């Protein structure tokens, strides 16, 4: 049971967060900053696990987001997989993970994922996209703190 518990916990988390993304994605906008709940969850979880698991979490976040939004599945799946793969290396560092580190990783990971999305199909007004991405990354970083604390609690994960 303890072996499959993390999988069940993540399945539940992704299910709820995907519904939140669908419902609150635009309602929760602050100015032009819109939250990406799925990417935030993927990156926060990636920090806790090695890269091979982290990329699986990123892939799940990307495919879920692409599926519910009907948006570019390749772009979302690949960018999220790579961003979370990168975030997974944090777990290999010999340091005590603090919420503020997680927020920084989510900020950087969001920027990286969104820039990867932009490269193959640059939007017409790139500066607006970059500005919105920057604000979105800050929003996700702020969300990362409660998500990290809740996720750690639900996984009964001890980082030390």
């Amino acid at each position, binding site marked *: 049971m303890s072996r499959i518990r993390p999988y069940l916990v993540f399945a539940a988390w992704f*299910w*709820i967060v*995907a*519904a*939140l993304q*669908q*419902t*609150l*994605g*635009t*309602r929760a*906008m602050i100015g*032009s900053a*819109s939250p*990406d709940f799925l990417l935030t969850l993927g990156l926060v979880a990636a920090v806790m696990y090695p*890269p*091979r698991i982290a*990329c*699986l979490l990123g*892939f799940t976040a*990307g*495919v*879920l987001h*692409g*599926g*519910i*939004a*009907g*948006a*570019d*599945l*390749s*772009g979302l*799946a*690949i960018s999220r*997989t*790579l961003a979370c*793969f990168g975030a997974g290396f944090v777990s290999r560092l010999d340091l005590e993970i603090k919420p503020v580190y997680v927020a920084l990783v989510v900020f950087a990971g969001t920027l990286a994922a969104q820039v990867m999305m932009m490269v193959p199909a640059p*939007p*017409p*007004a790139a500066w*607006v*996209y970059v500005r*919105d991405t920057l604000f*979105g990354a800050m929003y996700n970083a702020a969300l990362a703190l409660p998500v990290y604390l809740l996720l750690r609690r639900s996984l009964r994960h001890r980082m030390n």
Partner: protein
Amino acid sequence: MILIGLLIVGFVLGQVQTVARNNGRPDFVSRAMQAVVMPPARVMQWGLGVADDFWVGVRDSHSLRLENERLRALADSAKRYQENIDRLTARLESMSREVGYVPPPPRTKVFARVVGLFRFQNRATLDRGSESGIKPQMPVVAANGLFGVVDTVSKGSCQVLLITSPSIRVAAKVLSAKEVPAIARGETSVRLALDMLESDEIHTGDFVVTSGYSTTTPAGIPIGTVVEARDDPRFGTKRVFVLPNVQIGEVHEVFVLK
């Protein structure tokens, strides 16, 4: 190895999605994801709607009462106006019969709720699909104007490409001193750009509506207002930008024009 495998699977899923989308339907991954996520999302949507209505009711009770009285007065005058319209319509029909004119069949409106909105992807999900007769390319209209165009349709829901999407082109016309035809396309999440051959007569504040030159979108649906019209020395034309009438984030209910 896992990473490379996932990247390949991601790429393949994208190709499958493109093929399905070209056929006007969602791919199997999107269908599965929406089937799983839609039930809790609908419950959350309903809960948020109830909470919104409650707090708006509490906060605005006084102004709502005044608004209610004003609307009742408006409804009375609308009733009188409708009688006038009915009389004129009957006269128009009898004149049409006299000259043998057969008008095109009127479009029917399908009411739908926005159950998902994705600003970055310029997409929205509606709670009506092929069961309600919705097909790809049908225009979607909100209270203030054109909201988007149906992209893919499944049984009980459909995906809409928003008017701000760079992927759609809408046959439009600018109502300036004369009507100037143009193609409207999304530029950013908050403004559109117009492609046009003649642009000398365009000024800030001009209204933009659908032209009806497209077979799918009828004429006269408001699109937006010209907010910037500047010379483009590279091509010797004007660059015209439009602020959409519809505030995308505020829209919760729409009509699909069949």
